């Protein structure tokens, strides 16, 4: 009976895992099929008869996917850095100091959580245009336009505020007696203590920024600044006749984030539990 139950649970979970992998495996299988193999054949075969890497070579030659990946990395990395700086600075006084207007500040930050970006993106677009943060002015401006609107996130501020609150008050008091000013306390004493939460924030911000599609697809005009999601979506228009190439490009594009995920898996498992920070 006990064995039967365990077997059943594994059976169900394995089926769910197959469901979760199947779309990607089918994409991979299509990418590995050469020109001599019909990708619409009946019955379809998951294992290619003559597997080939030609489609990958071809798509990498025709489309600057490596450049897209570099752009995605630049945008995600700077979005992470700015979020860490702005969120930790803002979370510090909210958690460790008492001052006039604290509740107002807290309320305003909470308010931003309720407003979807999609509903305010039109004026954001106009503001970004007015500030010249677009790729038609300069590449640098184009990158900034993708990064700055996402440089602060209320989730991050709250996550770090909770982290700061867990640290005992005495640590600060003894530092004040030793003559530390508020920034020294923040930078030398408190920040090192919240390193786990900073990593969680960094990782989730990175994945969120890496997968962002709507905003870059609106503001980008030049192909050399395309991020991966924008570039991969463009493959559909460029190779509408050849799904092998669309599939190869898509598969190449997920390799970096899959490696990132596998290397940092324990943070993902911990992070969703802690803050429910969604990218």
């Amino acid at each position, binding site marked *: 009976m006990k064995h039967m139950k365990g077997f059943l649970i594994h059976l169900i979970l394995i089926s769910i895992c197959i469901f979760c992998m199947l*779309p990607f495996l089918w994409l991979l299988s299509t990418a590995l099929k050469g020109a001599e193999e019909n990708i619409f054949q009946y019955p379809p075969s998951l294992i290619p008869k003559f597997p080939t890497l030609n489609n990958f070579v071809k798509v990498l030659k025709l489309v600057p996917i490596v450049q897209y990946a570099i752009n995605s990395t630049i945008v995600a990395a700077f979005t992470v850095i700015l979020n860490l700086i702005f969120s930790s600075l803002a979370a510090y006084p909210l958690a460790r100091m008492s001052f006039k207007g604290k509740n107002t500040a807290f309320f305003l930050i909470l308010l931003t959580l309720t407003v979807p970006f999609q509903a305010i993106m039109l004026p*954001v677009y106009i503001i970004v245009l007015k500030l010249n943060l677009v790729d038609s002015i300069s590449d640098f401006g184009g990158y900034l336009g993708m990064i700055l609107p996402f440089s602060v996130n209320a989730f991050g501020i709250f996550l770090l505020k909770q982290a700061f609150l867990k640290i005992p008050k005495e640590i600060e008091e003894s530092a004040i007696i030793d003559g530390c000013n508020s920034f020294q306390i923040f930078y030398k004493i408190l920040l090192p203590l919240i390193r786990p939460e900073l990593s969680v924030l960094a990782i989730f911000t990175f994945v969120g920024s890496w997968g962002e599609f709507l905003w870059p697809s609106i503001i980008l005009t030049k192909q050399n600044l395309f991020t991966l999601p924008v570039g991969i979506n463009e493959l559909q228009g460029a190779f509408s006749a050849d799904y092998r190439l669309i599939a190869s490009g898509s598969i190449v594009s997920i390799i970096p984030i899959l490696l990132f995920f596998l290397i940092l898996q324990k943070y993902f498992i911990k992070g969703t539990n802690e803050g429910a920070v969604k990218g």
Partner: protein
Amino acid sequence: MKTDFKISPYLYLLPAFIMLWIFFFLPFFQTIVMSFYDYSVDFYSPSFTMFSNYSKILNSDVFLKSILNTFWFLILCVPALVILPLIVAILIDQKIKFKTGYKLIIYTPVVVSIVVVAIAFKWLYQPEGLLNYFFHKEIGYLTDPKIAMVSVAIVTIFKGIGYYMMIYLAALMSVPKELIEAAEIDGAGFIRKHLTVTIPHIMPVIALVSTISSISALKVFVEIYVMTKGGPLNSTKTIVYYIYEKAFENLDLGSASAACVILLILVMAFSAVNILCFERDKYKL
């Protein structure tokens, strides 16, 4: 020393608030203001028109259809995203081997870009694709107006299961083992034990998952943009897709902004319920 702690709170908050002002509060108010102006005659010098944008879109069949479609999408996604991840989480929470392996595989779709997931499904949904072969049918998953939205919802559910599973797994850790054991001694079977003990215990988290998945359903865009572009026959046109089309294809910023304000009201209502009822602890309200 003392002055440092008096002025500094504001200095620490300043950088975040400058960014929030430029990219959040200012556009928030501008959206509302823009919804009262007409951009369709002269894009560069819009004229003030009070509520005409609102009456225009609320009388437009396409906009009303996109509101209905958005709620139809919500109804399709939310129950699945509340129940399926819970079942998966309960199964993984048993005393079994390969827990981490299961978690990692089921979480993978969450980290992969939605664009790639949508492209992968578009390929499965092809008329000559794998799904039609598997079910021995000729279903137009993305071309039949009656089922296109269901096909899109399946993609969203696929992408979300792992995420909500992790939230449930964390909640399951808080269910007291003694209660489960007591239920076992009373002779409750696997399903009964979880229906009577586990589920009532994690009800707040189930409610939380319902509201956050509803909020993201109201904002759905990318799946639709990549797979159907709102078609066929507007059957997958949602509010955000409507906004996108009005603003960036028709350059009718007035109507788009009015639709934005309606989206704002909908989402803010859901979020307020969520924060005030289910996330009080998280924000220490």
